[in-house]
């Protein structure tokens, strides 16, 4: 069949300036091939390297889009008119912008094609998206509650290089939420157990352990080697380090945090939206925000929040969907409600604004909520558990005050202690005698330090903090006291 193909103006340079070309073929596909045979220079603008029609090239047969007919197999009649029309698409690009060559160089092995087949058959991911995942380098900071689902899903999804930073050891109290680990891993370095488990999840990816504590001296170097950083930390010093390093390096920081029954997720990407400091310019004062160790956390919560983070990482890499940039997602597990807050870039932000006042990293460790490092105190402010044991053995006259919650008291307590939870303490001072020597304890020593500060201000001069709390007591003095 002889048909007429209308050539759009910009492509006429490749058809010898002809606006119309006569072509032969039984179908639309054949006619187009005939056009390419006559004018080979036009081929690369119509067809991709793999021989398929480029996604933005559309064909109209007598004003009808062939996608609504039989596409390339649509039969032709003599005298038909075929028009080539582009759909115009583009945009600012995704997280792996600038890695086009690396992505193009990736090939999927037959084993990988089998592993990722349910990704590959979705047009939004497809082979191109999967190659992007393979070329991607993601750094997970923390392999704990959030790191567990993150590691499992990012590894399973085929993120080609997965770096993990952690320096901790698996503790029994981790097991109710850190599903990367089992009871057999207690006492092992998390990094070893995590790498072993993730290797089993997906043998096709590269796992890079970084056994270190992130600090201002190593954060930039470490993050620079990755495309995306995922924040799965449980403390403010590291959270600010991750944020600042990502802003300085122009990398996206996929943020998640959890406390008790509530979680938060966002993407902080200084180059494309607000950063964590736009929201919270400075860390909170020590002790104001309790850690999971102090406040507790619902075991399944990090599973939900970490999975949401993994979802955002994969979207950023594949360049699909609407990422959580400039939006803070709040989740309440008790009410089973999601809420979303719009975040704006702070024009005065110390790190991500046009005129930043902070151009390096800050170590907040000294004063930011990690219990052991929290108190900078005079000598008689606190005592060790060994001292307490000696006092008991000597039969000294003193009282013990427990400022934890009733639930914690129920789990484990020292003999002859009195319970006044920290929150209730200001209203219940009348129950205490300022003449008494008062040893104050909590779980690890953080809350009791605040209690002692308060008590001393209120005239209870002989109150003393028990360093390390009931946890240290159990570890060093009496292992029959349960640790939690």
């Amino acid at each position, binding site marked *: 069949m002889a048909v007429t193909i209308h050539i759009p103006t910009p492509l006429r340079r490749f058809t010898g300036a002809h606006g119309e070309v006569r072509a032969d073929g039984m179908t639309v596909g054949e006619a187009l091939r005939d056009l390419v045979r006559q004018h080979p220079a036009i081929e690369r603008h119509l067809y991709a390297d793999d021989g398929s029609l*480029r996604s933005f090239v559309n064909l109209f047969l007598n004003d009808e889009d062939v996608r609504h007919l039989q596409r390339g197999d649509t039969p032709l009649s003599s005298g038909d008119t075929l028009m080539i029309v582009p759909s115009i698409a*583009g945009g600012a690009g995704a997280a792996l912008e600038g890695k086009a060559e690396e992505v193009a160089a990736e090939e999927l092995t037959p084993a990988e094609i089998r592993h990722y087949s349910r990704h590959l058959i979705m047009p939004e991911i497809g082979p191109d998206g999967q190659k992007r995942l393979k070329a991607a380098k993601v750094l997970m900071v923390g392999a704990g509650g959030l790191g567990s689902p993150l590691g499992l899903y990012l590894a399973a999804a085929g993120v080609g290089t997965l770096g993990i930073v952690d320096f901790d050891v698996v503790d029994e109290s981790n097991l109710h939420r850190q599903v990367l680990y089992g009871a057999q891993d207690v006492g092992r370095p998390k990094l070893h157990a995590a790498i072993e488990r993730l290797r089993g999840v997906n043998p096709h990816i590269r796992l890079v352990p970084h056994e270190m504590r992130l600090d201002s001296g190593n954060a930039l170097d470490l993050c620079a080697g990755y495309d995306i950083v995922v924040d799965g930390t449980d403390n403010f010093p590291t959270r600010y380090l991750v944020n600042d390093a990502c802003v300085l390096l122009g990398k996206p920081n996929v943020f998640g945090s959890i406390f008790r029954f509530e979680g938060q997720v966002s993407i902080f990407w200084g180059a494309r939206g607000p950063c964590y400091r736009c929201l919270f310019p400075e860390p909170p004062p020590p002790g104001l925000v309790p850690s999971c160790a102090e406040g507790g956390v619902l075991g399944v919560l990090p599973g939900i929040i970490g999975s949401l983070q993994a979802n955002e990482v994969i979207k950023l890499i594949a360049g699909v969907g609407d990422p959580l940039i400039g939006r803070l997602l709040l989740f309440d597990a008790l009410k089973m409600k999601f809420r979303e807050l719009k975040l704006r870039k702070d024009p005065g932000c110390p790190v991500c604004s046009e005129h930043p006042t902070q151009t390096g990293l800050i170590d907040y460790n000294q004063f930011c909520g990690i219990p052991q490092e929290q108190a900078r105190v005079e000598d008689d402010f606190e005592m060790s558990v060994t001292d307490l044991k000696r006092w008991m053995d000597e039969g000294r006259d003193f009282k013990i005050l427990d400022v934890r919650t009733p639930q914690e008291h129920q789990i484990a307590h020292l003999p002859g202690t009195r319970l006044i939870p920290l929150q209730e303490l200001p209203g219940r001072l009348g129950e205490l005698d300022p003449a008494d020597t008062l040893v104050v304890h909590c779980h690890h020593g953080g809350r009791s330090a605040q209690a002692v500060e308060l008590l001393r201000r209120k005239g209870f001069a002989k109150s003393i903090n028990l360093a390390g709390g009931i946890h240290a007591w159990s570890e060093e003095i009496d292992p029959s006291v349960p640790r939690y």
Partner: protein
Amino acid sequence: MNRLVITPRHLHTIGRIASMTYPEECCGVLVGRPQGDSTIVERILTVQNERQESRHNRYLISPETVLAAQKEARALGLDIVGYFHSHPDHPARPSEFDREHAWPGYSYLIVSVQNKKVMEARSWRLSDDRERFDEEAIDQAAGAPIPGYLPMGVHREAV
């Protein structure tokens, strides 16, 4: 080197659209005629971004819209000479995605917008081998400057 000849008024209008559409991408059609090494823009057609999702970093003009725009251009004795779109919080440089979805022969005008503020406008043409985008000069000299309209690339504070 190619030149894109466009009036300050048209550039200003594109900047306003980009600013109003922020934080999503805007897009539209440049209608005009080629003249030697120059492309003269005579009209701009604003069209809806037809993407349903990812509108902050993706735009789409469907083939039906392109056909309609072409019809309109032809009726004026002109042709589609290029397209414009915005890059919210991103430089006015074509992305890899832009390159994969472009044809040589068109001008691709990109406007960078940050916090609703137009930062710069640059125009690009895809090389014949599809390997890269080459920048083309934007010539605002044709057409008298219109009082009150800001030339693109000039910060509001600076004026």
